[in-house]
């Protein structure tokens, strides 16, 4: 099976690189759905150059992320192609999702330079989705100049996107509380570019001023300034496309900064680390869930609950078993 799958994926990859959206879509499904087929795809991607610049766009719900992302992609300068992965939440009850980002991105329909895919978070709670690392890796081999990943609307602690992206853009709006909120947020510390959207609604200047105050980096000499990224704060009104040129300039400027300082390699490695972490988590989580529901697991859980055994005693036994199970699963899925 995997030999013919492999040939199919090779062919689709060739077509997708030429800008054929249907091939891109099919390959993305393979990457996102996971399982054995995604391992075969991984083989197909081996050794191919990863050339795309990965941009993460995050921020609270209702900040206008989708509108901003759609407008950025549609207005992206030059001839390069742009891909969008827009993550929306999955219902924890039914496992189904309503993915509504396309409603805010009408302009990308019919724009052959832009590929847009809605992605269900599928039980993940960090603003990203299961399989998004594989999907990002795939897109980075398909000759897209830029890949924009829009997270689920997040709060103050979901910062995984910064491990996935080369450049992280955080979107804020007026009326979301004072500067203390921005300082508290873990997101603030790892954001590369701040965007204040809905500037037409008033109060935006205050947000910009406050953000500038807390984000400015202390720089000594001019030589040192070369190696410090002064995180910009840009005001926009995404629905009117006002200020978007400036956001694009800053993203491109940040890409140049990463390449100039060697930081690009660090970020790329972070991405690899996240992909590895997610893959390992996936393997162990599956094995763990199976074990915990097994007869043995149930007996141990009961003994813990009545105080007969301690967590450490049980863990020693389970960890060895989990490793054996994960090993056999990996062997089974090797091509």
């Amino acid at each position, binding site marked *: 099976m995997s030999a013919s799958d492999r040939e199919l994926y090779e062919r689709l990859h060739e077509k997708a690189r030429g800008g054929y959206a*249907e091939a891109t879509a099919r390959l993305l499904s393979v990457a996102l759905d996971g399982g054995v087929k995604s391992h075969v795809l991984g083989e197909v991607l081996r050794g191919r150059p990863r050339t795309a610049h990965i941009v993460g766009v995050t921020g609270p719900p209702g900040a206008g992320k989708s509108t901003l992302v759609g407008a950025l992609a549609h207005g992206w300068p030059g001839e390069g192609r742009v891909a969008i992965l827009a993550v929306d939440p999955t219902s924890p009850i039914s496992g189904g999702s309503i993915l509504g980002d*396309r409603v805010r991105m009408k302009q990308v329909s019919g724009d052959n330079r832009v590929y847009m895919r809605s992605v269900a978070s599928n039980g993940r709670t960090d603003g990203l989705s299961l399989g998004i690392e594989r999907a990002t890796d795939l897109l980075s081999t398909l000759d897209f100049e830029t890949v924009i990943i829009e997270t689920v609307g997040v709060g103050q602690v979901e910062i995984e996107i910064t491990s996935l992206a080369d450049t992280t853009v955080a979107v804020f709006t007026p009326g979301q509380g004072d500067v203390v909120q921005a300082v508290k947020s873990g997101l603030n510390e790892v954001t590369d570019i701040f965007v204040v959207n809905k500037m037409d609604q008033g109060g935006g200047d205050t947000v910009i001023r406050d953000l500038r105050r807390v984000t400015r980096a202390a720089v000594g000499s001019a030589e040192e300034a070369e190696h410090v990224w002064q995180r910009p704060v840009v005001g926009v009104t995404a629905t009117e496309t006002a200020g978007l040129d400036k956001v694009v300039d800053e993203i491109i400027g940040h890409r140049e900064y990463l390449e100039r300082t060697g930081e690009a390699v660090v970020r790329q490695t972070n991405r690899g680390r996240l992909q590895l972490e997610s893959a390992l988590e996936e393997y162990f989580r599956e094995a763990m869930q199976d074990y915990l529901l097994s007869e043995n697991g149930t007996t141990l859980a009961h003994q813990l609950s009545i105080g007969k055994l301690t967590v450490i005693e049980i863990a020693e036994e389970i960890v060895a078993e989990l490793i054996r199970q994960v090993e056999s699963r990996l062997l089974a899925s090797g091509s």
Partner: protein
Amino acid sequence: MTATLTPPPRIVIGTYALDQHEVAALMVARVLRDAGADVIYLGRFNMPEHFVDAAIQEDADIIGVSCHSWEYLELTDKLLELSSQLDRRVSVVLGGSVITTSDAEGLLERGVTAVLGPGAPKEEVVAAVWKAAELAREQSIENG
């Protein structure tokens, strides 16, 4: 839910052109989400090429159009034509208050996979969508 399908159906849902009646589309989207489907919601103002473009990029199994105005009479042939040109099979499902019985017969003959009337209970909607997704996957040729 009627049948298990892994991964669950992916369906693009919206209304045609100037049909402003969006509530039913949103309701059906919720019913399908609650049954476990992934619904890619397009909202209003969609021409056939918008539906098909979205279905291509989203690797969707189904295009679902909520019809509460006359547009379906004019636009469905184009939608069927465009969706039949794809490498993978995409089922077209229509639903709505204005589709008459004789219209429904004609639509089914011309290649629409299912037509749902205004009184269709949730179970019927879910069953039709799962079946349409299954059909789309069975008939999709694995060609590059």
